[in-house]
């Protein structure tokens, strides 16, 4: 039995679709229930539904053998897991955004983000010293009301930025969802995991 940690929300449906394309027989009512652990006996699979940021934690600790996580989460968390496949789903990118024409505060430039690790690494690599302010959501708010000069967040269509009068200033990295595997599971359940990887690899849309 393989335990797979799945992110709730945006990525979930696309990942499920991909698994179905790979000919895994998953029940149609999957998403409707509020259960956090769903067993699919006929496929010898167990799904656990977690917050996207937590998927990597479950997999690193080995309570899930595999997981599906965005590259943004992997970059932020830097966990010791195998990143085996780029699933090419939930495409977006990490970007720096701000109000058009707004300059960074000279004394204490501030950046608001859900991704403090990515943001501080990025600005350090640019040779800029900034102060990071961690937020949990609605990051776009921060420059509007003067909490920060810049934000670092994922951008998919750019609509949220636009509607809030923000512009994308720099692109940090491309993001898609990845298949990740716990190192111990990778060694001990090798066969099962390899089959899953092969089946998924065969149906991943090539970019």
């Amino acid at each position: 039995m393989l335990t797979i940690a799945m992110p709730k929300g945006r990525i979930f449906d696309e990942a499920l679709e991909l698994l179905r394309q790979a000919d895994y027989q998953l029940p149609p009512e999957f998403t409707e229930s509020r259960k956090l652990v769903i067993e699919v006996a006929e496929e010898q699979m167990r799904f656990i539904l977690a917050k996207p940021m937590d998927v990597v934690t479950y997999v690193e600790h080995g309570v899930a053998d595999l997981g599906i996580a965005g590259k943004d989460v992997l970059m932020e968390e830097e966990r010791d897991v195998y990143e085996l496949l780029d699933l090419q789903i939930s495409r977006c990118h990490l970007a720096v955004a701000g109000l058009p024409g707004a300059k960074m505060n000279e004394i204490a430039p501030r950046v608001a983000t859900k991704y403090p690790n990515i943001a501080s690494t990025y600005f350090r690599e640019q040779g800029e010293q900034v102060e990071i302010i961690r937020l949990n959501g609605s990051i776009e708010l921060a420059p509007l009301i003067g909490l920060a000069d810049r934000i670092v967040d994922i951008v998919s269509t750019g609509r949220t930025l636009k509607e809030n009068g923000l512009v994308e200033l720099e692109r940090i990295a491309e993001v898609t969802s990845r298949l990740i595997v716990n190192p111990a599971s990778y060694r001990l359940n090798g066969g099962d995991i390899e089959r899953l990887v092969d089946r998924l690899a065969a149906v991943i849309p090539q970019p």
Partner: protein
Amino acid sequence: MAKKLFMFEKPLGMRDTLPFLYELKKQVRSVMAEEIERWGYEFIETPTLEYYETVGAASAIADHRLFKLLDQQGHTLVLRPDMTAPIARVAASRLYEDGNPLRLAYNANVFRAQQREGGRPAEFEQIGVELIGDGTVTADAEVISLMVALLKRVGLGRFSVAVGHIGYVNALFLEILGNEERASALRRFLYEKNYVGYREHVKSWPLSSIDQKRLLDLLALRGGTEVMEKAKTLVTSDEGRRAADELEALMAALRTYGVAEAVKLDMALVSHMSYYTGILFEVYAEQVGFPIGNGGRYDDLLGKFSRPAPATGFGLRVDRLIEAIGETDVRGDIECIVFSQERLAEAVELAEAKRAEGKRVVLQHIAGIRDIDAYSQRYRSIVYLLGRSGRDGQ
């Protein structure tokens, strides 16, 4: 009354070992130590504190994970983050004199600071060996076989040893990429287990399709000895061939030792321990998401202590090993004698007699017990010497 802040708290990652766990650790430790001694290794101890400049720098543990402190003269000290570097120091300065192989073992707590959530101790016990001064593949085979023997002795069910060769990876990268800078960029992806990034990176370089394929094929070289055929065709340089030959010889030796079935090759294995120079390995067990031990050849480490010598060894983590073995009831086999004042002499005599037989005996005055029912639950058996009846009444 307000409780004192931190009264029951411990610094992040520090753990107590209560009696139940202590018994379990003791048992696991003694079984393994006995086996290690049977293989002729001699145990040594080294100090908990070492100089940052020497052992701290020689250790492969990242700087931010070292516990550092200052001594009275202002020198930076570290709590030893591993045992390999201290043993290399001792061997280089004292023991490794005639250049003949030296077999040393250790059983000690090591310290690695951590910032993340719980579930990761910052101090943990390691048991392991170092075989210094023997550069042969048989030495590598011996330490792997000994490690497998230990895991079997402690009753570990399913486990798997992944074996690779850092010299092979280096040779392959260097012959295709031409320079160390590119090679190290690619090695970093393997070390981070980021195969997606590895593939993207390989495809982004202007390489011939054959060379690209060679680099991509590396990721698939996992399994039994059948992998060796393919592995040998992938490299062309002398270093690469030599590394592949070493691995092949290792697998043959492991078959002779009878442990080959526990071992899987993984040609893309790159360890977080940066001092490895040749064959390296990691061991995983069911029920534990993290490696329970690792090891490998580190032929350059003793040179950092001015006495170059080949060396290989492994370290097993006792905490993860216990997690892998699962809970077994090893409650201490302790008997209790509860006595009243007038029969103290008799109780002491009885306890001494039992202790002389090697039994574990608690001697407890009845007046010191608050709840006799709860107290008696703790012991396997309990003898009451109460009241005036004395010896005659027994």
